[in-house]
């Protein structure tokens, strides 16, 4: 049991360091992603209107909400 304890501590340390993912794109490298032209959807009302036009004439629906304007730039 005494031999296992250090191994357990080392394993927990390794696991915890593995969990804390380091950002591979640093905040100061996100200036391009913060440009308004990189927003998934600049005008939500306009996009919703176009989606409406389509959904009323197509059989499919859903998952059109652009996957976030949140580039985590700010």
């Amino acid at each position, binding site marked *: 049991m005494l031999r296992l304890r250090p191994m357990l501590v080392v394993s927990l340390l390794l696991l915890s360091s593995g969990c804390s993912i380091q950002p591979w794109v640093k905040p100061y490298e*996100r200036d391009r992603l913060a440009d308004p032209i990189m927003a*998934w959807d600049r005008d939500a009302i306009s996009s919703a209107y176009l989606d409406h036009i389509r959904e009323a004439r197509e059989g499919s629906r*859903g998952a059109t909400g652009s996957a976030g304007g949140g580039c985590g730039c700010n």
Partner: protein
Amino acid sequence: MRPTSRHWVRIAAVAALVLVRATSADVLPDDRADIFYSKYSGGGMDITGESATVRKKITEDLAVEANYFVDKVSGASVDVLSNASVIKDERKQKSGTVEYLHDKTTYTASFINSAERDYISNTTHFSLSQDMFGDLTTLTLGWSRTRDSVGENNGTAFVPKVTWLGHAESQSYNVGISQILTKNLIGGLDLEVITDDGYLANPYRSVRYLDPSNPKGYSLGSQIYPDTRTSTAVQGQAKYYLPYRAAVTGSYRYFHDTWGITASTFEVDYTHPIKNIWILEGRVRYYKQNSASFYSDLFPFYPSQNFMARDQDLASSENITLGAKVTYAFLPDGWKIFKRGTVTVDFSRIQFHYLDFRDIKDYTIPTYTAGNEPLYHFDANVFQLYISMFF
């Protein structure tokens, strides 16, 4: 125009979701006011829309938004025309949204009400959006519940006589992830499952079936829809910042539902700013679907099966959209309380082609034998004009 109400309310909830995702970066976006005008013409329908939206931060971590939208519809689509019914209607939609930001999480709640003479719809929507992994990843979870009252106007546009046919309820579950991949590239993945229960048919549309006793060779009958539907849609997209300050977006969506419809959507957008004044945008979209399992353009007799439909949106079809959008900043550097003011013109042309839905509207005197009419197709123009003030 009953089903369009259901679409609109659900899409308004999605717009609220997009809004919260746009905010999910530790700060809420700037205050904004929009005045919006739209016009759709195509397939015998003319729809004009007018809308006003105001978004205001109460504090740095609390924002509210209100939207009012009025749709005016005139004309009738081809399958409604085959039933000798012309629509002239107005729909009013009101929505309110509250957003609360706490640390790296944004909570959103919204309520949407849409009312026509023969269709009333209420939606409640909740979502949360969380930044994680050094703000490289944004995870969004959303849920909506919509309850509709479906009626049929047997009177005229001016003297309505509405019979209420039933209720429909739908719930939507959404998971989205937005991921920074490189300094120039972001990716997104969305999954949405929607379940419906209740009166799901359009009472103004009919099936047709072979009838030798009719000079046309066919007669019309009521549609028989299932009471339930579950659909799953997955969309993946990527946006890339080009070396000369422009952006290109590509997306693909796969859709499948329990009515047997499978669909694919491809879209490519290109965005090109010119200084701080203009933003030019172009897009191409292609869509294709197969028909629902209980759809037929012409049934052998009535009722020939448990469920029967001839709604054109359940037919096999494909369409292609070419669109352009120009945004001009008339206040690029702000003025008094305004940080920026823009005017945007957006135009899309959509070509619809149906693969098993035939054009029967013009043949009061039989020109074709039943089932041999030309396949239906039409072009639609979608125009949008809006002024946005940021403050």
